[in-house]
């Protein structure tokens, strides 16, 4: 593992003004419009924490993960890894990827169908210059760490394993390079509940043993609650709220966060949800509303919300939200 250079107080990741628009091409190849997938977001990830990222489809959480890994190039903004910017002035993308790994949602699609579990892990190690014998040993050690006996599972192909076992292989590949940050993009969402619990326990163990920092992306609010120290809420490419998990889950400030939590299923037939907190679907990220992007579905919206975009403001120590109603810019709301 590479050294912790910035000290414990230095955030492992600082994200500033990150933006990514995907062009939509018309039939003649001209750019007709842009999907505003991620639009100027900023946050930090502290060493050793689990930052949960929640939001609905199209809010930009997966794009954010890919931007952090530099699998796609940002249009603007910077990512600082433990004090070093990414690029020619700081650490290389290759170095970044050695220190930061990602586990995808689809355990089947993210494994090469022609590679055995061991081969899949060895590939990444060889990329970083490890000899083939040593790489095999390291791969087996990683498999053991995720609870798969290399003698039994090392030579299996993806189709010869269950969903939970495949996701363990994906995690083993992620930790084999001894990264400091693991990005988990909906990594347990596709698993059956009984298997999901096993994998969540495994992730908790690995985090302690390997001193990892997690960025845990999920649409499942219960899972995020279970694993996170802090939670980031996204809506249509913007960060709407970020704060400690107990604040976000206990005393959410942003109307969207509150509606999202009120949409959770009760888990108790005696306490069924009586009315849906929001109506309709999230708007199209190609043409987001002006000002506050949530205003079209917000019960508190006024003209001020259409006129200007609310910025993230500190409303309690470590707890920020972006809403005019909270910062007094809207007269006497709620």
């Amino acid at each position, binding site marked *: 593992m590479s050294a912790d250079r910035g000290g414990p107080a230095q955030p492992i990741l600082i994200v500033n003004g990150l933006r990514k628009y995907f062009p939509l091409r018309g039939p003649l190849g001209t750019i007709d419009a842009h999907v505003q997938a991620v639009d100027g977001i900023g946050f930090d990830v502290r060493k050793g924490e689990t930052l949960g990222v929640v939001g609905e489809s199209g809010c930009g959480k997966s794009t954010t993960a890919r931007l952090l890994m530099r699998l796609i190039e940002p249009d603007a903004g910077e990512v600082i890894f433990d004090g070093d910017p990414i690029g020619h002035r700081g650490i290389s993308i290759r170095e970044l990827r050695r220190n930061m790994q990602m586990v995808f949602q689809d355990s089947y699609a993210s494994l090469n169908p022609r590679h055995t579990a061991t081969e899949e892990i060895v590939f990444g190690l060889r990329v970083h210059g490890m000899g083939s014998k040593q790489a095999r040993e390291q791969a087996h050690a990683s498999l053991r760490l995720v609870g798969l006996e290399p003698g039994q599972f090392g030579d299996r192909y993806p189709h010869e394993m269950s969903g939970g076992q495949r996701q363990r292989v994906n995690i083993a590949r992620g930790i084999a390079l001894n990264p400091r940050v693991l990005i988990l993009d909906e990594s347990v969402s596709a698993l059956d509940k009984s298997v999901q619990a096993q994998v969540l326990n495994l992730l908790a163990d690995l985090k302690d043993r390997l001193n990892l920092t997690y960025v845990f992306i999920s*649409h499942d609010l219960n899972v995020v609650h279970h694993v996170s120290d802090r939670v980031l809420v996204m809506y249509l490419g913007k960060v709407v709220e970020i704060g400690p998990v107990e604040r976000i889950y206990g005393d959410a400030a942003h109307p969207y966060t509150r509606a999202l939590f009120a949409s959770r299923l009760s888990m108790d037939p005696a306490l069924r949800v009586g009315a849906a907190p929001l109506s309709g679907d999230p708007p199209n990220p190609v043409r987001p509303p002006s000002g506050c992007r949530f205003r079209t579905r917000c019960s508190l919206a006024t003209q001020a919300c259409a006129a200007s975009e609310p910025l993230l403001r500190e409303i309690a120590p470590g707890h920020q939200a972006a809403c005019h109603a909270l910062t007094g810019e809207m007269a006497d709301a709620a």
Partner: protein
Amino acid sequence: MPRDPLVEVRDLSVRFVNRDIDLTVVDDVSFRLDAGEVLCFLGESGSGKTVTMRALLRLLPPHARIGGSIRLAGHDVTAMSERQLEAVRGPVGAMIFQEPMTALDPVFTIGTQIAETIVAHEAVSWAQARARALELLEMVQIPSAARRLDAYPHELSGGLRQRAMIALALSCKPALLLADEPTTALDATVQIQILLLIRSLQKELGMATIFVTHDIGVACEVADRIAVMYAGRFVETGPVADIVASPAHPYTAGLLRSTVSASTRGERLASIPGGPPDLTDMPPGCAFGPRCVSHGAACDAGVPPLIPFAGGRASRCLLTKEVVHAGQGGGSVSREAHM
């Protein structure tokens, strides 16, 4: 009780047979459902919940072999010809799917598809059918419904598309609605809207509904009774509130315990070890045996029967009787048996 139930299934089994394999995916499934009731099949992937539901309308691939009897509003579904089945699909039982984009025809407008279904099943004019289609879109709470009649499926958002599919399913006023994970692909804020819609329509129209889901939360929101499925069999059946409060089968109990919720924060989750069995290589006795904490020698002797007990419940576990005694001692709900 002389009245026939709307759905009566006895000893249903479904096998998938081809040159190489003969795989039993559903086995020993019996249940009945009255008009206006909501039954939920709860299970993980591969548990046979979707196949069981599709068997009711014989919407299965050609290599599926159905055994046992299925009676739907007095019709014997297993004995019907393909043509007779067409008369049942729609007016008696209609189905909604997880992915409306694949269930709706992309080249026709929503209005046309609904009107066409109505015309195919009832002797009405095209204009009357269009008018009915508009009513249906309003009933499923699609905003500016008149304009949406002429929309193609890809022009609608995910939530609206799911509503349009529900409208299509309701077009023949079915007595039974079959819903196959209709909210799984939707976002949380949209999912709850659709669940509430289905719940209110079901009450309003007095439809019986069978809901297939892997999510206990969804079952808690909509179901009257649930049937927990594991490896192709019902392992526990009963009223949803009772099962969630005091599960009888070790699998149900494990599933409930391993479900993440607000109260599990920071704790280790009590997970069920291992994974579901391979259907080609099933354990000799209880299918859940190898993963069960209370596994004993008797469990491997044969597949345990579904043992009924108080409160209209049943559990496929040899320990069931003890659970009943313990439960009654604790003063749990005792209601008239449902069956």
